[in-house]
């Protein structure tokens, strides 16, 4: 429908008369006179019953438009001169082309989705890509944009507008909360710096663009792939980055597959192994004996590279209070965080614990 409206909007800039399109029941879909849109033209019935392609009244000329074998639309224009018939003929061809293009776009979108989801045979991808005029030889990068379900439609509209008319990007809706952006990354094929700049520029633009319209979004950035046919790998990586980011980097809106750190390792571990590790480091659920103040203290102590003076200054607590809290951690868990080895063990165990918690609650996740 949008493509028909677009044709009529463009026709308005060329033709002096009012023109419009109605469906076979006479309901006007699009018209240069916007007030007519949504109203019904009673002449439609007579036009449909006529055997002629063109019909006319004293004020208007009508033309039936077939898509495939079936009459789908009736065009109308003010006036009943021969030139008005010519205008309608041209407009009809214009609309048919637009509808055909739209069909091709939808097929292209479906094809890209199938490639992302590995529903296409690898060997056939370049052949089909050529049919859709997709440059198969350019490097690609996939970004997954996740929003709350109720904001998904708006986010998609924003992204489609942001990348509209862009040959270098393709925006697809995967589900009501997830949009995919497949970027042509040929310009970032060179150095590491170029790739980083490309990711930084695109991901932060998407995020700011959505935030600007009051939409909260999380972005997973996949890996660069050299050819279009490998975008499924980049998509998988982006999804993984989003999941791992959600677990270990909760205060981060952009998660990159190439910057997952320890989270990448822990995410691959089987749950039973993780549980065994936790039972070993925190026997008898020792971690649960630590109160919120102590946990905040530990995080700050780690963030300050185990520096007690900096930590107490940052937390506005006396150094003795910090020592007391660290002693309490040692008493409850057996780990002295002032020792590097114990600190590393604690840090890893708390990340593993976070991962196990995620596994338990993942079914309830509505966002990301």
């Amino acid at each position, binding site marked *: 429908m949008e493509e028909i409206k677009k044709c009529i909007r463009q026709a308005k800039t060329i033709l002096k008369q009012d023109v419009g399109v109605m469906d076979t029941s006479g309901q006007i879909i699009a018209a240069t006179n916007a007030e007519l849109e949504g109203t019904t033209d009673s002449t439609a019935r007579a036009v449909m019953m006529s055997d002629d392609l063109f019909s006319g009244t004293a004020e208007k000329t009508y033309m039936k438009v077939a898509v495939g074998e079936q009459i789908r639309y009736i065009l109308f224009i003010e006036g009943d001169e021969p030139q008005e018939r010519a205008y309608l003929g041209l407009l009809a061809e214009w609309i048919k082309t637009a509808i055909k293009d739209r069909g091709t776009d939808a097929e292209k979108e479906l094809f890209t989705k199938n490639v992302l989801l590995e529903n296409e045979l690898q060997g056939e991808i370049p052949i089909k890509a050529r049919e859709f005029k997709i440059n198969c030889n350019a490097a690609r990068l996939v970004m997954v944009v996740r929003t709350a379900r109720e904001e998904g439609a708006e986010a998609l509209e*924003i992204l489609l507008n942001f990348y509209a*008319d862009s040959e270098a990007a393709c925006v697809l809706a995967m589900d009501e909360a997830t949009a995919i952006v497949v970027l042509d990354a040929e310009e970032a094929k060179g150095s590491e710096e170029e790739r980083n700049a490309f990711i930084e520029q695109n991901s932060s633009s998407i995020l700011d663009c959505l935030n*600007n319209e*009051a939409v909260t979004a999380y972005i997973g950035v996949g890996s660069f792939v050299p050819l279009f046919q490998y975008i499924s790998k980049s998509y998988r990586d982006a999804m993984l980055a989003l999941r791992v980011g959600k677990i270990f980097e909760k205060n981060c809106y952009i998660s990159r597959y190439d910057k997952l750190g320890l989270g990448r390792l822990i995410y691959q571990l089987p749950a039973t192994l993780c549980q065994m590790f936790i039972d070993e480091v925190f026997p008898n659920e020792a971690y649960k004996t630590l109160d*919120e103040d102590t*946990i905040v203290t530990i995080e700050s102590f780690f963030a300050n590279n185990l520096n007690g003076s900096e930590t107490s*200054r*940052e937390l*506005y607590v006396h150094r003795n209070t910090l020592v007391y809290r660290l002693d309490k951690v040692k008493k409850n868990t057996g780990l002295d965080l002032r020792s590097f080895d114990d600190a590393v063990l604690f840090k890893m165990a708390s990340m593993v614990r*976070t991962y196990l918690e995620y596994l338990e609650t993942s079914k309830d996740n509505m966002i990301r």
Partner: protein
Amino acid sequence: MASLSFQHVYKKYDGGVVAVSDFNLEVADKEFVILVGPSGCGKSTTLRMLAGLEDISEGEIYIEDRLINDVLPKDRDIAMVFQNYALYPHMTVRDNMAFALKLRKMPKDEINRRVMEAAKILEIEHLLERKPKALSGGQRQRVALGRAIVRDPKVFLMDEPLSNLDAKLRVQMRVEITKLHHRLKTTFIYVTHDQTEAMTMGTRIVVMKDGFIQQVDSPTELYDNPINTFVAGFIGMPPMNFINATINVDGSDVYVTFENVTVKLPERYAVEEVMERDGQEVIFGVRPEAITDEATFVTDHPETAFAADVDVVEMLGAETYLYVTVNGSLPLTCRVDPTTSQSSVGQVVDLAIDTNRIHIFDKDTEQSIIS
């Protein structure tokens, strides 16, 4: 137009990371408040909580008298401007500015009216039919501001909006945004890590570090009376000189001693908070402009004078920076008057401190000893 109230606001993430702690702030209607601090201090998180892009872990935020903790971002009546202009590349300036309103199904006439009004305010009427790629950085930034203005929000939120501009354009846009605030008469909350932006634009500045508010004050108060060494060092360029010194009390006179230099403090320092620290170490803070090489001042103030080796002289036109070393080990920065300064590199120069503009901080807590 709206007042804002942050009441004991926290942002905590699972696992103990606290991004914002006990944030309390009252913002009056039409105020221009700047949140400033180093990277990771929680300023953007605070702004995002206000915008609704980040959940509030604890506490309450009010816009006027309306509690907005659970209000959807788009219903908060705010508009944001980010570092990235995030303009739609294929749309004209006019369409870019109208886009948010179209999304909200606003009538066309109203959209046109608002776009024209915003374009007039920003003086970009002649750019309305251009596309973003045909605009300069400054013009793009204006369009981004225009997109915010057309929403007619109660509060404008800006997150480092000038970071993408070059230094010259940044100065220009700083003035533009300040003018815009006067013209729109709306509440502005502005986040930056740049203390110059903070000092030049805000009616009040909130200095943050590690998620905590350090000090909330007017630019002048922050500069003249910093509450601790962090604020003292963060505000002002070049930064304040911090000197490890010892307090010495002799009768009713108070002195600070560092590197064999003894400086007599003015009478206002002869108070209990200072006198009781006789023999104790403190941090002596001196702004660069409080150290001078002006001959008359040095002669008239022998009680604060000392000699130093000049390492570097930076001529900036309206002012000159001297980088000197006292006693071969204590580096200091001085801002001197180029019309009177005769100092040159390699020279031993006589300097004196204007003790009316000094600061003394506790060595352990780093808090100012007298306010």
